[in-house]
Every structure is written in structure tokens, then in C-alpha cells.
């Protein structure tokens, strides 16, 4: 036997947990402490069948919390007080009395709390919390109706299972309907989910300046930056180009604000289509595989350096499609002097080194080969620790520590290249990416931020060169962390999140219309496959039959007769097989046709009630039963 109170209590705890868990990290310390204590206290109190806080106390405490946090609510500080109030009210309810009314209150609070969590962060986990909570509440409500009827109700295990199955059926069907409605219900131009979910601006590894040695501004976080749907590519092609830095001031590489020319001149390369779904942040640069070509899906400016910028900071999630030309070169539209600029006071050691390299040959290619060779033989190592920090970090990197990360490699390489008359510039972006074979996309995270160099060799155009790969430990350090494979669970979770973003968050009116039109096209495309009139006829006949069945059923339900009338008609049909029965004729007509006074009497009594819009009285029902009995007995 199952005492229904026990599963009801546990469902209550689960619902509270589901409501509070998504906001727990954002709660103030008192609430963070109070909640687990209240849960434990509530469980033990329920076991001893007592309440920790009496009703009055609970109301008073609730009021106090309400006033305290309500005071803090303002337009800018809305969510924090609200989630704290909700969490503390749930805690009080856990400790208080647990009548049906109280449980319902707590379910509502938990639902609100979950809803509030959507204002903090809205990812795929919200959906799983919501689904679990819907199921838990639905089952709990069913149990509650039993417990409300009888507090001590016990059911056999079989009965209990039956109730649970039926109770689970309802939310199951509701969720299926929800799915259908989500797709077809009209959308606004602006996805509502976005409004609720402005998106956190996380710490970024990518920056608009490169200044080696100042701070370790590397983000070690694995926060996703964007996901790019494309085919799986070799690792050495995974350079996600973002910004080009051409101006060197001291140690500081900056972006030249204006580059003459409007469209980049791309030569050669292999075209690859990529769809990029960026996470929301406040950057205006768009990333694309090197070298980015035509962009579509969003309005973005593309300058001669191939840098893509949005006109303003995005306010909602978006995506764009871009054609990248892997292995292509970019023609320089202007004089090369622009990329030979160097700061005035460069360390003499560096100038010295440059002079040695310059002696290697007369042509650009020879000098470039010497530079590359120098980096290869100098035994630089790639690391995030023991970084040069002095007043001249580049010189320190080149001649003393010989340890650094991409910024040091790229800055020093580009500086030396310029000193030996090879035009060079820095390119910032991301390198690598975790290919998610479940979703068919690359996940690029902040810790994959990277800086490399582009050099202009003998007029052939800008060529990508990544000095970091020349480090002695490049294969282990640099490449290892770029796309170190994720576990299956991670890939699954991320794929779920990716589809959530694609299907839910950016699902707005435009996408709905696109889907609708595509469906229409597909249906039209389907039509010629139908084998001429024959198939169409078969389909029409089947459809017609279906409609007849449905309308017949409808008619049948519409004329679902009173049980006595049905019994009467059955007995008349047996006794007078040739008679036309209602509803093809009236009861009196039937009585006249069969010429049976009992039938006339039935018609009088039944019609006398029915056609005068009243119910049969007890005596009338008795009389009708008697007539039916007579008709039946007479036939035997």
C-alpha cells in the first residue's frame, strides 16, 4: 500500500528544487544558506508530521522579507530582489504547514522562480527544468486531489501506478501540443525570448588592441564565442579572422581607422560556406574563416582589409552566412609603406637583429625566409606562464625569456618583418574550434582567441603566417588546446544548446515565414510525384471516406439517445424488423406504423417530457421501463 502523502511530499521538494536551482548561484548569501536548511528542516518536520513555523509566523516572516526586498526593487535592480523574495518565501513554505493550499502556493512560487531564472540566463537547461517541473506539478496536482479528499488515503501499488501513468499522460500531451504551437503560433518581428534574455557580456579573450606584456588579459574561460556550421576542415585552416591591426605605437598594436578601398580583392582559394551563430556580446566585429568573402543575412560593412563590422552593437541574437576563401590572398589596394611604419625608439638589440636578417638577401622572399628561420632556430616556447613583463617586453621575449604566447610571437615577428622592409600587420581572431559532429558545427570559445601575422610578399598579396607555430612546443602547447576534443556529454550538451539557440531563441516572424514558404514549396514539389489522376482520385476518395466516417460519428454523437430510448428502439427493432426507426421517423410515426398501443404510449410519455423541454420524472422512467420490458417479453 502506498500512502499518497509520501510521494506528494517528495514531489513538493523536487518542485521547490527545480524552481530554485537555476537561480541559486545568483541568490544573496542569506537565501543561499536558508534554502538548504529549510529543505532539510522541512523533510524532517514532514517525517514527524509537525510544522516548524506556524501559519501566523510564516505570514509575518513573509511580510518582512517582502518589505525588505521590495524596498530594493527598482527599474535597474529588479531581478535580484525578486529572486531573493521568491527563494525565501519558498523556504518559509517548506517549513510551514502543508495543506493543499500551501502546496499550491509553493508550486506557484517555484514556477515564478523558474520564470525569473529566464531573466538571468536562458539556455537549453531552462527547457529541461521547465519540462521536469510541468511533469512534477501535473502529477502532484492529481495526487493532491486524492489527498484533499482523504488525508490518510492509501492505494495499492497497482492503483498508484495507474494514477501516475494517467497523470503523466496529460503533461506529455500538453508538451507535444506546445511543440506544435511553438512552430505555428504567430511570432512577433522581435523574438520575445531575446527580450527576456539580453545575454551576458562575458569576459573576452579577443581584444581590439594587442599590447604584449601589460596584463595577462587572456581569458582562460571556455565561454563560447560563436558556433559556425560548416564541414569539418583541417586544423591548419581554422583561422577565424576578426580584426586587422596595422598601426604600431610603442608596444601597442592598433587598428588604423580607415583603409582606402571598399571591397577586398580576393585571389584564389577554395570557397567554403559557413553559417555563424555568434553568442551575444557587445563587440561589433564579425568573425569568419580566413579569408572572408561575401556575407549575407545581416547588414555589415566589409573594408579592403576584409574586416567585417556591424553598424551598431547587436541587441538581439542573429546569424550570418559567409563564403570564405581558404588559402586565398588579399591584394593590397595602396602603397606598402603604410605597413612598414615602426615606432621611433626601438630597442637597439632589435635593430641589430634586423640588420643581421636584412643581410640575408636582396629579395623579400630571401629576407622573409631568414626571419622565419631565425624564429625556428631561436627555440622560442609557447606558454602562458613566466611571461616577459619588463619595459620592453618584445626585446625581453626575443632575447631573454624566449617564452610567450601568440601576442609576443606575432608582435615581435611583425615588428622584425617591418624592420627588414617586409610589409606586415597583425590579425586578431580565434584559432581552432571544437567540431561537434552531432550538430555539424565548430564551437569556438574565448580561450581560443589568437593573434597572427599577415605579410605582403613581392606583390602577390597578403599571406597569413602564424609565428606561434614556430615555437618548439607548438604541437603540444598551441595546437593541443585549440580543439582539444570534448567528451561526448559535452558535445551533446552543447549541441542541445546550439539547437535551442537556433530553434527557440532566434525563432522570430521572419524565420516562421521562411519555414512556411519552404513548406509550401516542398508541398508543391511533392505534387508532380503523385501519379497523375489515379493517385489524386484515390486520395480524394480516401479523404471523402474519412469525412463520411467523421460526420457519421458526429451525427452519431449528436443523436446519442437517452439510454431508455436506445433500449426501446432495440426492442422495437427486434419485434418489428421491417419498421423504419428513428431518427428517420418520429416516435409517434413509428407507433402508428407498427400499430402497437405500447409504442404509442412510449411516444406519448417520452415525447411529453422531451418535446416540452423537461426531464423525465421518476414515474415516467418507471413507466417507460415497463413498456420496454413488455416489448421484450412479448417477443420471447
Amino acid at each position, binding site marked *: 500500500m502506498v500512502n499518497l502523502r509520501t510521494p506528494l511530499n517528495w514531489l513538493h521538494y523536487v518542485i521547490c528544487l527545480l524552481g530554485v536551482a537555476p537561480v541559486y548561484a545568483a541568490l544573496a548569501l542569506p537565501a543561499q544558506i536558508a534554502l538548504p536548511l529549510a529543505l532539510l528542516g522541512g523533510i524532517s518536520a514532514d517525517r514527524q508530521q509537525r510544522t516548524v513555523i506556524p501559519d501566523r509566523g510564516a505570514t509575518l516572516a513573509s511580510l518582512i522579507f517582502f518589505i525588505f526586498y521590495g524596498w530594493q526593487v527598482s527599474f535597474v535592480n529588479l531581478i535580484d530582489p525578486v529572486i531573493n523574495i521568491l527563494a525565501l518565501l519558498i523556504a518559509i513554505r517548506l517549513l510551514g504547514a502543508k495543506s493543499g493550499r500551501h502546496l499550491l502556493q509553493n508550486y506557484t512560487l517555484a514556477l515564478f522562480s523558474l520564470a525569473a531564472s529566464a531573466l538571468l540566463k536562458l539556455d537549453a537547461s531552462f527547457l529541461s527544468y521547465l519540462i521536469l517541473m510541468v511533469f512534477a506539478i501535473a502529477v502532484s496536482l492529481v495526487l493532491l486531489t486524492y489527498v484533499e479528499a482523504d488525508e490518510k488515503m492509501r492505494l495499492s501499488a497497482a492503483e498508484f501506478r495507474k494514477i501516475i501513468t494517467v497523470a503523466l499522460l496529460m503533461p506529455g500531451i500538453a508538451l507535444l501540443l506546445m511543440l506544435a504551437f511553438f512552430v505555428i503560433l504567430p511570432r512577433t518581428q522581435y523574438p520575445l525570448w531575446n527580450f527576456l534574455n539580453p545575454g551576458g557580456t562575458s569576459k573576452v579573450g579577443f581584444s581590439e588592441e594587442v599590447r604584449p606584456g601589460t596584463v595577462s588579459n587572456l581569458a582562460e574561460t571556455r565561454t563560447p564565442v560563436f558556433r559556425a556550421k560548416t564541414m569539418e576542415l583541417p586544423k591548419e585552416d581554422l583561422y577565424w579572422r576578426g580584426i586587422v591591426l596595422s598601426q604600431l605605437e610603442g608596444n601597442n598594436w592598433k587598428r588604423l581607422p580607415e583603409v582606402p578601398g571598399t571591397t577586398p580583392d580576393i585571389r584564389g582559394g577554395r570557397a567554403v560556406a559557413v553559417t555563424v551563430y555568434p553568442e551575444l556580446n557587445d563587440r561589433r566585429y564579425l568573425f569568419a574563416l580566413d579569408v572572408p568573402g561575401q556575407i549575407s543575412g545581416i547588414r555589415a560593412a566589409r573594408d579592403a582589409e576584409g574586416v567585417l563590422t556591424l553598424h551598431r552593437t547587436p541587441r538581439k541574437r542573429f546569424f550570418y552566412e559567409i563564403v570564405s576563401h581558404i588559402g586565398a590572398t588579399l591584394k593590397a589596394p595602396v602603397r606598402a609603406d603604410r605597413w612598414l611604419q615602426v615606432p621611433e625608439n626601438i630597442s637597439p638589440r632589435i635593430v641589430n637583429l634586423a640588420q643581421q636578417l636584412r643581410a640575408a638577401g636582396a629579395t623579400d622572399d630571401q629576407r622573409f625566409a631568414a626571419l622565419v628561420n631565425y624564429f625556428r632556430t631561436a627555440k622560442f616556447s609557447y606558454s602562458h606562464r613566466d611571461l616577459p613583463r619588463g619595459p620592453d617586453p618584445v626585446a625581453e621575449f626575443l632575447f631573454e625569456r624566449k617564452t610567450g604566447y601568440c601576442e609576443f610571437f606575432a608582435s615581435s615577428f611583425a615588428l622584425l618583418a617591418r624592420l627588414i622592409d617586409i610589409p606586415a600587420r597583425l590579425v586578431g581572431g580565434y584559432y581552432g574550434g571544437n567540431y561537434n559532429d552531432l550538430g555539424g558545427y565548430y564551437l569556438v570559445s574565448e580561450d581560443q582567441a589568437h593573434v597572427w601575422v599577415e605579410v605582403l610578399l613581392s606583390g602577390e598579396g597578403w599571406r597569413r603566417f602564424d609565428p606561434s607555430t614556430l615555437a618548439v612546443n607548438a604541437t603540444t602547447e598551441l595546437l593541443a588546446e585549440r580543439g582539444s576534443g570534448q567528451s561526448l556529454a559535452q558535445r551533446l550538451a552543447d549541441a542541445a544548446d546550439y539547437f535551442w539557440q537556433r530553434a527557440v531563441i532566434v525563432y522570430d516572424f521572419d524565420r516562421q515565414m521562411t519555414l512556411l514558404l519552404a513548406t509550401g514549396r516542398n508541398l508543391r514539389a511533392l505534387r508532380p510525384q503523385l501519379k497523375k489522376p489515379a493517385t489524386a482520385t484515390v486520395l480524394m476518395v480516401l479523404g471523402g471516406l474519412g469525412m463520411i466516417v467523421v460526420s457519421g460519428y458526429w*451525427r452519431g454523437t449528436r*443523436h*446519442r*439517445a*437517452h439510454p431508455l*430510448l436506445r433500449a426501446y428502439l432495440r426492442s422495437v427493432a427486434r419485434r418489428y424488423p421491417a419498421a423504419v426507426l*428513428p*431518427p*428517420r*421517423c*418520429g*416516435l*409517434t*410515426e413509428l407507433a402508428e406504423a407498427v400499430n402497437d398501443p405500447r409504442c404509442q404510449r412510449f*411516444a406519448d410519455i417520452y*415525447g*411529453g417530457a*422531451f*418535446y*416540452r*423541454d423537461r426531464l423525465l420524472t421518476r414515474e415516467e422512467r418507471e413507466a417507460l421501463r415497463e413498456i420496454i420490458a413488455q416489448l421484450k417479453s412479448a417477443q420471447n
Partner: protein
Amino acid sequence: MSLPRHTLITKTIDILVADFLQGKIEALRLAMTALLAGGHLLLEDIPGLGKTTLALALSGALGLSFGRVQCTSDLLPSDITGLSIFDREKNAFKFMPGPIFNNLLLVDEINRATPKTQSALLEAMEERRVTIEGTTHNLPDPFLVIATQNPLEQVGTYPLPESQMDRFLITTGVGYPPPAIEKEIIRAGSIREEIRAMHSLLTLDDILTARRFIREEIQLGDRVLDYIHTLIVATRDHEMLLSGISTRGGIAIADAARAAAYLRGRAYVIPEDVREMIIPVGAHRLIPRAEHETLGKREVLQSIVAALPVPLA
């Protein structure tokens, strides 16, 4: 439940059928229904089947004043309504009421009258009063018109337009009597003389009392009302019909069904009453499409009624 004057009225019908109108029970019942429901009756049949006899017998039995108009193409409206003539002695005009100022008016071969005469008559049927030379004269109550028309006669006739057919509550035929009865009728010869000699079975008051009861007390339940409405809507949607039964037609069906229920001795209407009355009351109100002109309206309506289920629960 006892219905006022019900026994008397049914007995009258029985006596009339037994003594004078053998084989015309249906037509007589419909005539009585029209009288009780306060409507007019149009008898459509070939001459010589006893339409006039029916009207004569009815008037004789009911103790009502009786007038008769034989329509011809030179019949004038004033021949029906009456006219004022100058009284030389009193030196003033004196109104001479026409045959319309009777409780029961038999209009023989109405379709032989000119449209102008027809409309004068039909106006009186609708308004129950006539205005002659500026003076309005109320017609007696009850006022029942029994008109006959010969469908086969084509030459020199002015068929009643649909809108005027609408003025008649009930249209029916008389039909040939069954062979045995017809032979008896032929043997006995015309019974006009006997009808003239018959004494009345009902008084004016009996009829008015029954009519008031039917109008005010016979119950028409929601389900039967729905049934009537479904039927008239079905006639409007029918593919062979240009227009179906109007709201006025619906009222007529309900009124006739009430009277039919009364005649059956019931204080409430059942669907069978509606099914009984809808053909005589509804058929002549239908307008078929041009391509189905030859189709019988009765048959179309019958098929509609047969297709719709009777409300049972």
C-alpha cells in the same frame, strides 16, 4: 389533459367526413387546421373533385357566414370587396359590402381573375380589412379564404405569383376518392342540396375559443423549434432551389403544427406535427431553379424532410 372544444371539433370532422365528404378526410383536416391556425387555404386540383363541396360543407357545419366568388377575367375588385351606390331616397352613398364580408369566402378558380382583382383579394387576406373609397372596413373574425385553382387550365389564366402564394397558409389537393366511395358518390349524385339543409355543428364561439387556446397554450419546445429551423435552413441551402422557406414560412409552419397538435389532442408540438404540416405549408413557398422548374416542389421538400433526422435526445 383536456383541450377546450377539442372533442367537439374532431367530432365535427368525423361527421362531415361520414355524411358528406367521404374520402376527403385529409383535405378536410387541413382546411380545419387552416381555420384554427388563422390562415387561408388554397385547393389545387382538377375541377369536379369536390373542392367546392368541401368549402360548402365546412361553412354549413361551422355555422359561419359564407360567401362565394366565381372568378372570371372580367371580375372587378369591387365585385369582391363591395361598392358604394347612391341612395336616391336618402340622397347619400350607401356601402354595399361584397362577398368578402363573410367568415368563410370561397374563391373559385382564383387564377382566372386578373392580377388586379387577385391583389385586392390577397390584400384583404393579409390585412383582414378592406379600404373602399377612403373608409376602412374590418373583416369578420374568423376570416377564412378557401381558394381553388385548376392547374391544368392554361388559357386565360393569371397564375398566382410566388409572393402571393405566400399569403396562403396551406396548399393542398383534394384527390380522387377511393373507388368504392367514388362509386357511392356517383350513385347518390350531388349532395349540394343536403349540404344547404344541414344544420351547424359548431358555433363561432367554439372556433374562437379553440383558436385562442392554440395560439396561447399549445407548447412549442426548443427542440421542435430547432427542428423547424433546421428544416427551413435546409431548404435554403438545397441545390435545386433558388430560394427556400422564409421566416414567415417558418412562422406558418409553427402555427400549423400547433393546430395539428391540437387536432391530435396534444397540448404540445412533436416533430410529427411538423412533418405532417411542412408539405402543405412549405411546398408552395419554394422557388425552384430554372433548370429544375418541372420538378415537384412537394417531392423536393419531402426528400429534405426524409434526409434530416428527427430530434430524439
